[in-house]
């Protein structure tokens, strides 16, 4: 009898201890944990500025490195390491820096570090890929420990935005390890540091306690490349990844109904369109180009191909970027009027070859095929030519792929229309649009320092582009993410950056 009672007591004691330990370890491990993120690709080098630009680079570099300025979720430029800035003259800026920024090895991030980083990028011998982004800078001068002066070659209204993509590096450390050493063991001033890196495969980040951005809730982040979309999604469903980027639209609907997960999306600073070569005789009349725009049902493409994960558009810049004009609507779907306009313009037997990539942009080929179908319906014969990525890029920069091709332009991280309008200037090899008035407006926009006036100029450009229609404007894609429910604090952004600072587990 006694033995039974003792056994029972012993068992319940054991259970209590076990449960307590379990709960405790559960709590302890929920307080800080490792977030697992799966992207479609991974950077080849952890040396920011040097070799890579654009996502996924920005996703991987922002936790580790800092920039002078930053873009918030609405695409506005906000202070980061630079607390404020002002123009002392149209070509001269003064940036005030925070005094409390330290790299993870203790080195101070001051004006010297800023000058070192910018000079290194600007030096043509270093062949750094992001140099083109800040090519307007003429000189960087240290005024005081926390003040930097930047002189530009000509007035540059968006210099602060440009600086949001230049990651600040530790001069003393870099000089001591050399370029190769730094690429292998990079050091930044962000809330995470690199623990391990496999080029083009994955990177493991560990939280750092000394960053001015505050101590993260997470202990670490593992970001890895899973190129195959179905495997990425499987990873999310199996709980092996907590945040997964780029869920194919047709999977996204099903996934959002699954328990334990949610699908979130955000409109990107990106635009997809079929660019038309206005030099081509058949396409030289704007009425013809407008007709082509009227012939395509963008809403159907958004619903049918992108499954709702896109926004139809009539301009290049979405509301999340500077240069958007809210009075411009997408061309309505009116095949009857399109046909009438084509007839009125004297167009008979028009054949267009639409060039496209396959898989470079989400549903690039599918969208092109849809457009071809709509054009066929109004009497325009079409052919589709699919090009491999490298061939496409070569033709794009070389002025080939006439008379039409699918293209996706993006304007992040600066979130400014300048980066998409630039491609349509007469002087550019990439431009298929020759319009002197547009060129004048663009040139004016690059020099106008008053933000309100500059916005007006850019909105005029948007209206002109819409009116002249040198392309069949389609949509702004929305980037999808699969997120496990225990993840909190994740905000999808129009520049695809994931801010890990405030993400935590429930």
């Amino acid at each position: 009898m006694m033995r039974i009672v003792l056994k029972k007591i012993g068992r319940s004691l054991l259970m209590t201890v076990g449960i307590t330990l379990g709960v405790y370890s559960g709590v302890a491990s929920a307080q800080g944990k490792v977030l697992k993120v799966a992207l479609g690709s991974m950077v080849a080098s952890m040396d920011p500025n040097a070799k890579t630009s654009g996502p996924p680079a920005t996703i991987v570099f922002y936790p580790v490195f800092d920039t002078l300025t930053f873009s918030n979720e609405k695409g506005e430029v906000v202070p980061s390491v630079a607390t404020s800035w002002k123009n002392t003259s149209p070509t001269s800026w003064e940036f005030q820096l925070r005094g409390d920024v330290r790299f993870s090895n203790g080195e101070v991030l001051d004006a010297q570090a800023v000058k070192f980083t910018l000079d290194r990028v600007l030096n043509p011998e270093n062949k750094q890929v992001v140099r083109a982004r800040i090519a307007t800078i003429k000189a960087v001068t240290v005024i005081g420990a926390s003040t930097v002066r930047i002189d530009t070659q000509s007035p540059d209204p968006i210099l602060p935005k440009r600086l949001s993509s230049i990651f600040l590096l530790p001069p003393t450390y870099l000089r001591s390890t050399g370029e190769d050493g730094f690429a292998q063991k990079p050091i930044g001033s962000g809330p995470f540091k690199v623990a391990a890196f496999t080029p083009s495969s994955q990177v493991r980040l560990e939280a750092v306690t000394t960053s001015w951005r505050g101590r993260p809730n997470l202990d670490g982040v593992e970001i890895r490349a899973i190129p195959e979309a179905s495997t990425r999604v499987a990873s999310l469903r199996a709980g092996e990844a907590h945040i997964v980027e780029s869920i194919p639209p047709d999977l996204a609907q099903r996934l959002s109904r699954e328990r334990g997960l949610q699908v979130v999306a955000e409109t990107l600073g990106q635009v997809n369109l079929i660019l038309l070569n206005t030099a081509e005789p058949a396409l030289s009349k704007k009425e013809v180009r407008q007709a082509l725009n009227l012939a395509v049902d963008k809403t159907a493409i958004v619903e049918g191909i992108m499954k709702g994960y896109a926004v139809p558009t009539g301009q290049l810049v979405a509301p999340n970027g500077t240069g958007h004009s809210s009075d411009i609507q997408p061309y309505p779907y009116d095949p009857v009027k399109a046909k009438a306009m084509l007839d009125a313009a004297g167009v008979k037997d028009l054949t267009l070859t639409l060039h496209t990539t396959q898989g470079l942009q989400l549903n690039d080929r599918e969208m092109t095929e849809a457009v071809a179908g709509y054009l066929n319906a109004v009497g325009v014969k079409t052919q589709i030519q699919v090009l491999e990525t490298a061939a496409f890029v070569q033709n794009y920069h070389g002025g080939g792929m006439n008379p039409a091709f699918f293209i996706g332009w993006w304007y992040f991280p600066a979130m400014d229309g300048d980066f998409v309008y630039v491609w349509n200037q007469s002087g550019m090899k990439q431009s298929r649009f020759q319009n002197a008035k547009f060129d004048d407006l663009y040139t004016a926009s690059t020099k106008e320092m008053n933000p309100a006036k500059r916005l007006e100029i850019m909105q005029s450009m948007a209206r002109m582009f819409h009116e002249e229609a040198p392309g069949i404007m389609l949509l702004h894609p929305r980037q999808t993410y699969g997120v496990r429910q225990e993840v909190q604090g994740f905000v999808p952004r129009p520049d695809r950056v994931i801010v890990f600072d405030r993400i935590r587990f429930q």
Partner: protein
Amino acid sequence: MTRLILRRLLELVITLVGIWTVLFFVIRLSGDPIALLMGPGASSGQIEAMRTDLGLDQSLAAQYLLELKRMAALDFGRSIRGGQLALDLAWSRLAVSLQLTICAMLVALLLALPVGIIAAAWRERRVAQLLLAITFLGQALPIFWTGPMLILLLSVAWQLLPVAGWQTPSHAVLPVATLASVLLAKLARMVRAEMLDVLEQDYIRTARSKGLLRGTIILVHGARNAMIPVVTVIGAEFGQLVGAAVLTESIFAIPGIGDMLLNAALARDYPVVQAGVFVITLVVVGVNAAVDVAYSFIDPRVRHAADR
């Protein structure tokens, strides 16, 4: 014997140079990595400057000779995308791919042997025929179906195995199974064919007349002789397997050399492509050479013929 090894080494060098030459011209004529690398913001001036820096503005012949000299010194240059030494990148990825392909080869072999032997020795039985048919399914179903299906079933639905990556032994199960499924049918068919051949031989009849057990006859006298041609095929199949591994690595996000090669080729990262192909050629030719040498050990007839 020494002559055999020396001859194989010479063949290795010639093959390497030959493949490398073909690759050099094919990849150089196919596209321009600089524009891809520098991204949309670069001006033509910057693109041309980068091109000169990387020595890509010289004539093809000049580039070829320069590269040939460098290859002899095992200097493949640096990755255009990442800046690391191309050969280092290739070597670091090779270990993972070798693990994958060797495991897949072993699994395929270990399964193909009993299936082939049973299918030959008991060929009238329904079970044997069914077994063979199932292996054919593995060959018929493409990897990009088998892989994701296995993931869906075993990782997502039943949560038995991890989805992607190559960290623990359990990560290896699905990719190895996927890769092996392709090879299994081919090997099983070959084992069966060889066994059928061997079982007709006189010495088998002798063994039976001696009163040996059926099992002994099949395994000791039959299978061992049937293995000889299968071993030689392993060398050739290994090369195919390395190719199929690219797909498997992509599906399961395994950081192997196939995946590296694929990304480098798409980005026109010449140095990495060349280093990758060089390493893979080395491995495939090396394995074939090793199999040849091993073959001469297994089969006394070949050994004596080679020495003569």
